[in-house]
């Protein structure tokens, strides 16, 4: 088993049910955990859409959704209901298999990525010993979904969008991977919980000073590109391609892409927080003596993630979009060499123990 943990609440729940009810209990436990994650996925997705709209409104001198429910909180639920009720349209000459497979790839990719993220001390579905690597691997499955959607729609705009997305994600995966590696050099582990434990005394962004800071900047840029957000939203670049790869999707097909995009943004933020800002650890341990530790961990985790998400939204609502050649130039000529040098720098610092 690659399940290696001591205080994993989800694992404890499954173990408890196994002791009580045998194999059936174990399966029930898996179902419960899956249900919790699915619920979180939907709620977080809807909430992030709402937050995005409010933040956008904040930047654009508007109010944003404020009519349905208190502070417009139910607006996105109303929108989701509308999307559910909508007719599924699309081109007739689409490649049916790829067209429909697309969102079945995008959603699990985002959902599985979520499963290794430590929301708090011991609140993590799987504490894999290769956690960070697992997230990078799973997130690249999502690209396939977008490529399938772009190809299967049989629409030139979708195809261009899908191809752009492939180019972009494969390129920026490298930089994101290098940035992650830089931190892993310091942590000496790929396991999420271990990475966080290492930051008990000092967060990695402080501990690794210069190379960690560079890695953080690279990771944020690459992460924005991977989650298809402005200034890297070329796959759907609405001024050029209409809606890019999801032009031909309607109703829930479209909503799945939309949700997955927001969850990807959440995952990117969560990984950044885990790697650089100590995950669920309280700053200076200010809440360490209080009861309900896992709850406080979750509070700190979500506070930090909200900050990161706000940063990504800030980018989106202020920057213009890059052109495809500029996007690739930025990656291959700047980010990648800098990232490689940064790893060497970090290796030297770690070897001679010059980190703080």
């Amino acid at each position, binding site marked *: 088993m690659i399940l290696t943990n001591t205080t994993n609440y989800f694992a404890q729940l499954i173990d408890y049910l196994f002791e009580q009810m045998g194999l059936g209990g174990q399966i029930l436990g898996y179902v419960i955990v899956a249900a919790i994650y699915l619920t979180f996925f939907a709620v977080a997705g809807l909430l992030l859409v709402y937050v995005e709209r409010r933040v*956008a409104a904040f*930047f*654009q*001198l*508007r109010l944003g959704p404020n009519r349905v429910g208190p502070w417009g909180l139910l607006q996105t639920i109303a929108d989701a209901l509308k999307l559910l009720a909508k007719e599924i349209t699309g081109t007739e000459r689409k490649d049916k298999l790829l067209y429909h497979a697309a969102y079945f790839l995008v959603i699990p990719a985002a959902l599985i990525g979520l499963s290794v993220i430590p929301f708090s001390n011991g609140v993590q579905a799987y504490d894999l010993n290769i956690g960070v690597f697992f997230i990078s691997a799973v997130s690249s499955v999502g690209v396939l979904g977008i490529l399938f959607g772009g190809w299967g729609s049989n629409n*030139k*705009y979708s195809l*261009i969008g899908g191809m*752009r997305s492939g180019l972009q994600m494969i390129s920026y995966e490298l930089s994101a991977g290098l940035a992650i590696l830089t931190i892993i050099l310091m942590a000496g582990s790929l396991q999420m919980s271990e990475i966080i434990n290492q930051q008990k005394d000092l967060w990695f962004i402080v501990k690794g000073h210069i190379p960690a800071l560079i890695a953080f900047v690279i990771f944020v840029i690459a992460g924005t590109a991977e989650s298809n957000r*402005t*200034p890297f*939203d*070329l796959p759907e*670049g*609405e*001024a*050029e*391609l*209409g809606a890019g790869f999801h032009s031909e999707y309607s109703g829930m097909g479209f909503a799945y892409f939309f949700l997955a995009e927001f969850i990807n943004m959440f995952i990117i933020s969560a990984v950044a927080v885990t790697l650089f800002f100590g995950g669920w650890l309280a700053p200076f341990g200010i809440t360490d003596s209080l009861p309900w530790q896992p709850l406080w961990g979750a509070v700190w985790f979500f506070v930090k993630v909200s900050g990161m998400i706000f940063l990504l939204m800030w980018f*989106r*609502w*202020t*920057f*213009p*979009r*890059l*052109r*495809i*050649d*500029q996007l690739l130039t930025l990656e291959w000529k700047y980010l990648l060499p800098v990232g490689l040098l940064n790893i060497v720098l970090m290796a030297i610092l770690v070897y001679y123990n010059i980190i703080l």
Partner: protein
Amino acid sequence: MDTVTLNTGDLKSQEYFLNMGPQHPATHGVLRLILTMDGEVVKNIEPDLGFIHRSIEKQCEYEGYKQIIHLTDRMDYLSAHINNEAVALAIEQALEIEVPERVKVIRTIMGELTRIASHLLWWGVMGMDVGALTTFMYAFRDREMINDIMEETCGARLTMSYSTPGGVMFDLHPNFVKRVKEFIPHLRSVIPKYDELLTGNVIFQKRMKGIGILSYEDAISHGASGPVARGSGVSCDRRKIAPYSALDKVDFKEIIYTEGDNLARYNVRMKEMLESLNIIEQLIDNIPDDGIQAKTKALIKLPKGEFLQRVETARGDLGVYIVSDGKKNPYRVKFRSPGFSNLNALIEMGKGHLIADVVAIMSTLDFVVPDIDR
């Protein structure tokens, strides 16, 4: 079952056609561009027009001269007042009417306000076309102030129909001067913010600089006018060449950039807004008080002959050409619209660029499709 054999030796890249429009966010209306593409590189552009052709020129032949003005609103709806003014000037020229000084000043102020409103809308949409969505809201907030000024005076916000042959429809609203004086410092204070948000952005600069170059010669040979030609170094401002209304009384610069690229056209428009503010500022303090309407007959009949009036709209050189056979409606009306010629220049400019650049170039041309089709 049929078996499909795939000989990879026969696989080769080929050019394909991409229909941009008539329903596409970048064309800002129902314009269709047939793009010949090689991957993402645009090899050829072929505009397909006529989706919003409403035969305005033909309709004019069945309308009286006072009614024609109301049709011109619907051509270039973003500089509606300047269109109205052009027709009114042409008719006045034919009838040899001298309009009161007050009318001239009002028309000029209104025209410059229209120009600013149009440029503001262009700026907002320009940002959207390169992916910066926030610019739209900023521009609309400030454009709203102009629309309110217009609404107070002439009751309409967009299609004003404010000029009539021999004068203007209504007198200025008592609040007019106050409102305009509030607006001038406001716009002066927000334009540096615009620059911070978009102009100074490194991504934006990279997207604009050296893209879509229109040479001096090409600008002339395609008949480009307005900010598009001025961005290529062509001096073509009708307001300078043949001042109409009160424009001969004011002192202003013609903004000319010589680079001919997207950024030059962008800068021309940004600077023109400030220059328009200068014009308004020079006129707003002493608007003469000698009536708003010259004496005209209830039924206007133009003498036999041909009459041409050219004005500078926000998009460039608008020519109104009226052929009269002495009846109450014109024999033939021709509008020389700036957008049509400017679109022509796109064919030269867009070739060899990426699709995203073509969108940006189109945006700097700032055409209004009803103006192209009429």
